[in-house]
């Protein structure tokens, strides 16, 4: 059935594919960006139609409901303003004490809100793309959080207009974590292919006193994630590595299956 020109064409494509597979990572990233830009009109169309649907939904909300929400938000705003005044006094006091003891000053939290524009089409990666890129000051390895402050992952590759994020549970996103209270540290690694919100925390000390429901936060020891970002809660612990250490199953606080808006945290 196949003729000589067919075999030549096949050989050429195989050689071309193998060449692309062996290109340097930067060249591949540029190529990916170029090929991916082919989809820009489609994504623009999808996001504009989604916005139109949202606007239509907002337009049909009754006036009474809007007034009620407005009143509730006004009250919440007043309460938060009072709390902010109170906490800013505490921050000033804290800064003063830090100066007195010559401790390092704490820099204010810098965040940028992004939107998830597309999810991973393959089943064996936990990645997504967000609409923030290098033009927004995004660089590789910045921490990505949910609106509630839970860890999602890190920026794997920042492009000009968008970035690829790799989520907790992927082999390419290991997180140095700490259990609270207790302070036992371990490493959060890969998850089960079907369990989006369960990850394994390995290399915990054998004598660690761990209970289900304990909080897990970043320890800041890995050099990528700042410390004290909440990750999730311990579900169950079990001995690992022939009893040399313990591992724990951690339920993530972030719902990775339905991400819409994310915060990128700057150092």
């Amino acid at each position, binding site marked *: *059935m*196949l003729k000589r020109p*067919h075999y030549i*064409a*096949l050989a050429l*494509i*195989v050689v071309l*594919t*193998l060449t*692309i*597979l062996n*290109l340097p990572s930067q060249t*591949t990233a540029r*190529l*990916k*960006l170029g*090929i*991916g830009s*082919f*989809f820009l009109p*489609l*994504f623009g169309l*999808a996001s504009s139609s989604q916005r139109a649907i949202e606007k239509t939904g907002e337009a049909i909300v009754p006036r009474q409901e809007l007034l009620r929400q407005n009143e509730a938000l006004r009250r919440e705003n007043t309460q938060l303003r009072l709390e902010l005044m109170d906490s800013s006094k505490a921050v000033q006091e804290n800064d003063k004490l830090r100066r007195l003891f010559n401790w390092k000053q704490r820099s204010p939290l810098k965040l940028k809100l992004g939107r998830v524009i*597309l*999810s*991973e*089409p*393959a*089943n*064996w*990666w*936990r*990645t997504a*793309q967000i609409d923030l890129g290098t033009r927004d000051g995004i660089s590789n390895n910045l921490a990505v959080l949910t609106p509630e402050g839970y860890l999602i992952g890190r920026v*794997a590759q920042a492009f000009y207009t968008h970035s*690829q994020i*790799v989520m907790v*549970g*992927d*082999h*390419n996103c290991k997180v140095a974590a700490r259990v609270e209270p207790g302070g036992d540290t371990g490493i959060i690694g*890969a*998850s*089960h*292919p*079907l*369990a989006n919100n369960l990850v394994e925390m390995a290399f915990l000390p054998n004598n660690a006193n761990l209970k289900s429901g304990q909080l897990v936060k970043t320890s800041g020891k890995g050099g990528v994630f700042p410390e004290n970002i909440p990750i999730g809660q311990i579900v169950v612990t079990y001995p690992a590595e022939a009893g040399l250490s313990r591992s724990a199953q951690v339920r993530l606080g972030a719902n990775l*299956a*339905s991400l819409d808006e994310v915060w990128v945290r700057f150092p």
Partner: protein
Amino acid sequence: MTWINTILILLSACLAVFWQTAFHGVRHLLGAQIDLLPALMVYASLSAGFTSVVLLAVCGGLWFDSLSANPLGVSVLPLLLVGVALYSSRDLILRSQTFARFFLGFTASIAVPFLALILLLTTSQRPLLGWGTLWQFVVMGVAGGIAAPLYFELFGWLLRLLGPAEMSETSFRSDREIRRGR
């Protein structure tokens, strides 16, 4: 006619890849994202020319990888392998049968991700694998099996719509011709 078919196949591949990245309802529901490219390859290899098969493998694979964390090009070879295997034996396949289309779609939708995973493992990548991967293969296989006959129907309808109208049979029959002698 051939070029209309090729354009339609490539357009469908583009839309299929876009759909897989933009909508993830199936993943929420069943724990696996379905892949529509292998089923499309079944249609292309059984109904279109060799150029269409090659173009679908190259463009579809590169489009898929450009939106995924896969290394660029890793999806091209599995699609090409499945497409060429089906194309070279398409005279032996009962391609007009719905069950055969379902079976081919099912097999191709398992074979393509399986080969892609093998290729990934040889390139020192660490994809997420486990017992759950088997379930994901089943979901992808069944979805591909359902998609393949639908592609045949859809493309048949589109080609009838866009292609030249079929010539209607004339009432003239040569065996009924009255030959007049002298």
